[in-house]
């Protein structure tokens, strides 16, 4: 694995590496008991959350706003949280996602290599659990990597995306001045990743920090179908798209911020 450019102090506040797999309908709250025991030391807190809908990259459908899904009653998504809440594994009957969240400013960003290893370990344990409980085999259909970067801005400045985007032209000359808020979404095809189509979704949006302060979020998500349904193929996919995510972040953000974040080649 070649090392991508990185930052000494990146503005990353959340990372998620995940897979979607063919639904294992027997995987419900009550059957997760052995997994809960296996992960209890590292993830002592368990929470139930509403399930995530399936999101599969497909042909471009401009303006698609509704999707109907027909299936059994959706099972819950379970969060397995570390004691500080920074590390999280999300499990539902068609997904497993490993998250890291910046719980406070003193926490060090764990780097992709660490997250990849953690993700592979959790998936491996999950597969063992499925085998032990005879719940079914894991057949991965999508893999995805997501990063959220946050930059604090003054209240009322959430329309000035130039803080975070070198490509932002603003609304110069508009008779009402600068917009109060602004959002930007970019979608790139990833022709060299997995089975096409794979895509990278980039969004810059106004957000609020946990302390109530105003911020801009820049989220980057790369998603697609690995070449095969195995964990190895999913990891290959993630390694490939990670480079695109890193390069995109560098290419889209201004050099002044690179200095602040400590870009190293």
């Amino acid at each position: 694995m070649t090392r991508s450019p990185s930052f000494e102090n990146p503005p990353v506040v959340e990372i998620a590496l995940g897979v979607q797999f063919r639904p294992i309908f027997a995987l419900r709250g009550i059957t997760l008991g052995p997994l809960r025991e296996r992960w209890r030391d590292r993830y002592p807190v368990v929470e139930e959350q509403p399930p995530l809908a399936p999101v599969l990259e497909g042909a471009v459908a401009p303006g698609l706003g509704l999707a109907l899904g027909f299936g059994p009653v959706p099972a819950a998504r379970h969060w397995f949280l570390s004691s500080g809440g920074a590390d999280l594994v999300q499990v539902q009957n068609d997904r497993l996602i490993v998250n890291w969240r910046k719980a406070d400013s003193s926490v060090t960003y764990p780097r992709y290599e660490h997250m990849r290893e953690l993700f592979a370990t959790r998936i491996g344990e999950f597969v063992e659990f499925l085998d032990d409980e005879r719940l079914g085999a894991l057949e991965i259909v999508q893999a995805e990597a997501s990063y959220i970067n946050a930059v604090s801005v003054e209240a009322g400045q959430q329309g000035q995306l130039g803080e975070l985007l070198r490509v932002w032209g603003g609304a110069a000359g508009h008779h009402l001045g600068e917009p109060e808020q602004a959002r930007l979404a970019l979608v790139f095809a990833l022709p060299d990743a997995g089975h096409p189509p794979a895509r990278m979704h980039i969004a810059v949006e106004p957000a609020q920090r946990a302390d109530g302060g105003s911020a801009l979020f820049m989220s980057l998500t790369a998603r697609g179908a690995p070449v095969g349904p195995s964990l190895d193929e999913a990891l290959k996919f993630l390694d490939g798209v990670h480079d695109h995510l890193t390069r995109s972040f560098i290419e889209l953000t201004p050099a002044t911020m690179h200095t602040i974040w400590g870009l190293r080649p």
Partner: protein
Amino acid sequence: MTALADRPLSGLTLRPLPDPEGSSIATGPYPASTGSLESKRHLTIDVGGAERWQRPALVQYVEAELNALLELSDGWDGRRAHAVTIPAIQATVHVLAVVTNETSAPPQLFPLPDGGIQVEWHVGGNSIEIEIDAEGEPHVLAQTSDGETIVEGVIALEQADARLLEARNFLQTLSARLAHVLTPA
């Protein structure tokens, strides 16, 4: 509404501020169906990549009502009625996506013996009735309290059907009237 394709929905736990205007079922174009249609009978309606609990109340209401209809099996009337069909469900969501918005009065939804669905609004003697047959073909009849027919006929789902747009305009009028009635002076 933000399109599904615009939203990563990746399992991230941090969320940006919601769109100022929120999502609206009325602005969504035609729905797409995913998954196995005939063997499993539970419907979910995803709106613009929003988390399930963030969807407009009307969407959640319609989803719950349609899932109740999906639980009916053949003979639900004690006689020879057919279970509600998936094409009828799809067409119902499609029709509601066009005619409703977040301020619309919620419709009443009834099963039909042929496997279709009847969608109705009744406000102060005015009514809109959309009958969707088992094959998913809708027929609309909207009338005022004076008996005047606003719109009547078969709706073509593949295009921006003029009858459907007439029904939407009439529903907005009725919903505004209902909101006025329900708002204390």
